[in-house]
């Protein structure tokens, strides 16, 4: 225990440059969330010095994981991995042969869709009209694209784009995903903030798992960010995106997401 650390925070004990010196460490430890986390992910894609510093911290922290006790996963875990790897290989080989049935979790049936919509409980504030639109989107999405396109593991290349209309306005939210670099661009250049709400963008994975937050949309700005791999693997043509209205700062921990205010889907350009 040292006494000097007891000074609370009068006059800002740490300067902006000090904060800058440790932000990569905060990112590596996982301390950041919300806007700060998004900013750090953005820098990872655009700032090589920052990326190198993040890696430096990762390498230093890595030995600590030796203190974590090992544990045996269930035998089904390997089966799942093998099925996904084999399934992706099949779909890569099948390439344009859309008749080839996909194996494993990538084969989305309408029953799966029903289940996942039920599991995904949008509650407070979700108007029935919006719900109907959302459900129609979910149910029509899988049929719209040929089956081979639905593999969540996209083999290569072409950017995916979504242009999401905002209510009755002529405004659109532009979302572009670049598979080659795992980057996502969110363009909200025409939008303005109302001062009481934020809007959070979500990806609706094809495999029926819970929607994944893509972050709070910053009105009037174009944001570029590197997506984490658990999101990247769910990216693919036909994948749904929804925009929800949330309190400032995005969906609070432990409560349901706010009402869906817009939706769209990613498609190959």
């Amino acid at each position, binding site marked *: 225990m040292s006494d000097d650390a007891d000074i609370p925070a009068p006059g800002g004990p740490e300067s902006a440059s000090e904060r800058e010196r440790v932000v990569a460490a905060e990112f590596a430890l*996982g301390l950041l969330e919300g806007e700060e986390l998004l900013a750090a992910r953005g820098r990872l894609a655009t700032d090589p010095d920052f990326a190198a510093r993040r890696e430096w911290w990762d390498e230093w922290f890595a030995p600590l994981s030796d203190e974590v006790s090992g544990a045996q996963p269930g035998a089904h875990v390997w089966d799942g991995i093998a099925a996904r*790897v084999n399934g992706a290989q099949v779909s890569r080989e099948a390439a344009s042969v859309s008749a080839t049935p996909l194996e494993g979790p990538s084969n989305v049936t309408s029953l799966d869709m029903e289940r996942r919509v039920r599991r995904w409980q949008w509650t407070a504030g979700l108007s029935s009209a919006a719900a109907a639109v959302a459900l129609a989107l979910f149910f029509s999405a899988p049929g719209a694209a040929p089956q081979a396109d639905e593999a969540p593991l996209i083999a290569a290349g072409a950017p995916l784009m979504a242009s999401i209309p905002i209510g009755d306005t002529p405004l659109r939210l532009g979302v572009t995903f670049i598979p080659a670099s795992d980057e996502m661009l969110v363009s909200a250049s025409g939008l303005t903030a109302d001062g009481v709400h934020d809007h959070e963008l979500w990806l609706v994975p094809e495999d029926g798992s819970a929607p994944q937050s893509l972050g709070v949309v910053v009105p009037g700005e174009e944001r570029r960010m590197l997506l984490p791999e658990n999101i990247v693997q769910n990216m693919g043509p036909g994948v749904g995106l929804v925009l929800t209205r949330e309190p400032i700062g995005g969906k609070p921990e432990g409560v349901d997401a706010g009402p869906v205010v817009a939706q769209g889907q990613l498609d190959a350009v």
Partner: protein
Amino acid sequence: MSVAAPSSDSSRSSKSANEAREALRAAMVRLADGDSAALEEIYTATRVKLFGICYRILGDRKEAEDALQDVYVNLWQRADRYDPQRASPISWLATFARNRAIDRLRTGKVRSGAVAVEEAAPLPDEAPLADALLVDAERDAQIHKCLGTLDDRAQTYIRAAFFEGHTYAQLADAADVPLGTMKSWIRRGLLRLRACLEASEKGGDAA
């Protein structure tokens, strides 16, 4: 093991650790070259350690198993990201797994830190396997030494962030202090930690 005869024990175990590390490194290179069969070898050698990490962060067995699947499927997709010249393979994989688990925590609805430490260690007989893959002992000693120079509070919260995957807000809540205070404590610790680690890289008087 016996305290009386540490030297023969440790040299034997470091030899097998080297062999295990090299076998793993070779499998990672084969995987990057497109040999999918190498994935099973890597899985067999590392699943206990990586599952332990995911479980500790996510605090839920089912979630941790899902995360573990993602880890190895991602690994298969991105094996070329591993640079065999640089990092120890297990250290790289441990970081990879932890980052995936953290991503999952931040994007999903999972709660962190729900599991007691004892609960997360159901299979002590598997521990030797993980030990055989120990990361670089010198770096291990150095990070512990540098963490040891921090005041207790900074050490405690930095470790909680690493092991439980807690955010600033969660740590502040748990400690019942304002967010700014928690940030200030941890940032000071990280500044000092950075200085200590950098000095060890430059000075070479690490041990």
